[in-house]
């Protein structure tokens, strides 16, 4: 936005508008991924009766954290991630705290390896994401085994892993498109 000059002085009203706009952009950038993640988790907690709904909720949550922490860590602040994780825990069907823990793990891994992963390409990041989902599924399974004090089928682990790994490319493309739209809008 071009600043208007009146008689050689800066237009303070226009300057204030620019400041507010920058603040709005910063807030939107900081909050958008977390808000989208919470909305997705909340919508998927509604009783639609869809097969694999709970597993998809976990997959989309972890996929969102993984993508934004890997490609735009500035859009996903750690405090926002923790708070949104706490909110998501309210609508999750997993054992309490597990999803939040693995969201933080995903953030940490992505944040720490983002330079190396950006050089290796998509496949490696996809594989790492699959390992994180596998860890989350195993943790769920172990905690449920402890709770019921008996052996459980490992089929839910396989199902959740397959669903998460299979859905991540679509999520990746969707977030890339959203990122480009957001950056284009911010430039204007």
């Amino acid at each position, binding site marked *: 936005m071009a600043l208007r000059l009146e008689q050689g002085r800066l237009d303070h009203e226009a300057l204030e508008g620019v400041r507010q706009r920058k603040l709005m952009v910063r807030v939107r950038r900081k909050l958008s991924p977390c808000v989208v993640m919470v909305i997705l988790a909340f919508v998927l907690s*509604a009783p639609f009766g869809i097969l694999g709904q709970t597993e998809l909720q976990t997959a989309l949550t972890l996929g969102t954290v993984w993508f934004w922490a890997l490609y735009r860590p500035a859009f996903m602040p750690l405090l926002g991630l923790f708070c949104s994780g706490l909110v998501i825990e*309210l609508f999750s069907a997993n054992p*309490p*705290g597990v999803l*939040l*823990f693995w969201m933080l793990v995903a953030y*940490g891994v992505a944040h720490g390896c983002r330079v190396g992963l950006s050089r290796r390409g998509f496949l490696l990041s996809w594989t790492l994401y699959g390992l994180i989902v596998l860890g989350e599924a195993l943790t769920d399974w172990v905690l449920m085994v402890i*709770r019921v004090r008996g052996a459980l089928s490992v089929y839910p682990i396989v199902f959740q892993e397959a669903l998460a790994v299979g859905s991540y490319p679509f999520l990746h493309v969707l977030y890339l498109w959203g990122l480009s739209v957001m950056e284009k809008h911010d430039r204007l």
Partner: protein
Amino acid sequence: MISIHTRQLLSGLVLPVMVFLAVGVMLAGQIWSGRAIQLRMAAAREMGPVYQGLLFPQKQFYKWQLTLQGVGDLLAANARLRKENRQLAYWYGEAQTLRQENARLKAVLHWGAEDTRDYVSGWVVRDESGPYLRAVLLQVGDHQVQQGSLAVDAVGLVGRVSEVGAHVVRVLLIEDAASRIPVTLQNSGGDAMMIGDNTPYPRLMYYSQSLRPEEGEHIVTRGQTGLTGGVAVGHVHYLSPGQPVVVPDAALERLELVRIFDGDFMLEAPPSAGRVREKPPLLPDHHDGEAPSNWQNLRRFLPFSSLRNG
């Protein structure tokens, strides 16, 4: 003021602290799982209206799906009902035919039970069928039988009495060329004339052109003065187009026991065109106790002679 180094150190500690907190949440959830569940239930209860709003499109979709399914079921039910309707129409036709047949058989059975009808059963003592004559002689004992009485077997019409003797009567079969019996077509109700032609199948003639006999249609005698109606005769068959014949119900080729209905319903026997008279009369032609002359005997063989006995 916090220095940059301190700030970097603190920012590096945020993630481990949060992971530690997450582990704490996890442990708390395992230790106090009941409270965690209550917390989640409270959140779900507060978000109930929002869930209802989210589920509204899905419910509407299910309603439309049920409606479409109902329409599909209606189409299937409609097709099934049409098929059943066709079957019912078929069975209705069958029932009509059976009812007519039942009524016909009942009429035949009821016939013999009527007090007003006098009948006599007689054994066939001689079969007089030949190339130009179809007739049988019945032994009827002392029973008085009138000319023109109907003769039936167990199933249908056999013929009519053409001559009466002291103990024997001659029955002119319906297939004889001299036989003329008015009949009624049972389906259409039309009338026709059954005319024998010395073949096993009498012809059906003089029917209304608007009520043509149908293939397989049942035929009964026409009720009129001098003839009892409703006696089963046979059914229509087309030997060739436009030439209906009657397939008799009665076993005319092997008649044994024949029943003759007698009564005051017969006024006069139909003319038999001299066929019956080819054989000598069963009773001698007596005229007031006089012996028959030779001339009178010769009259039997002359053409256009009287049919009456004597």
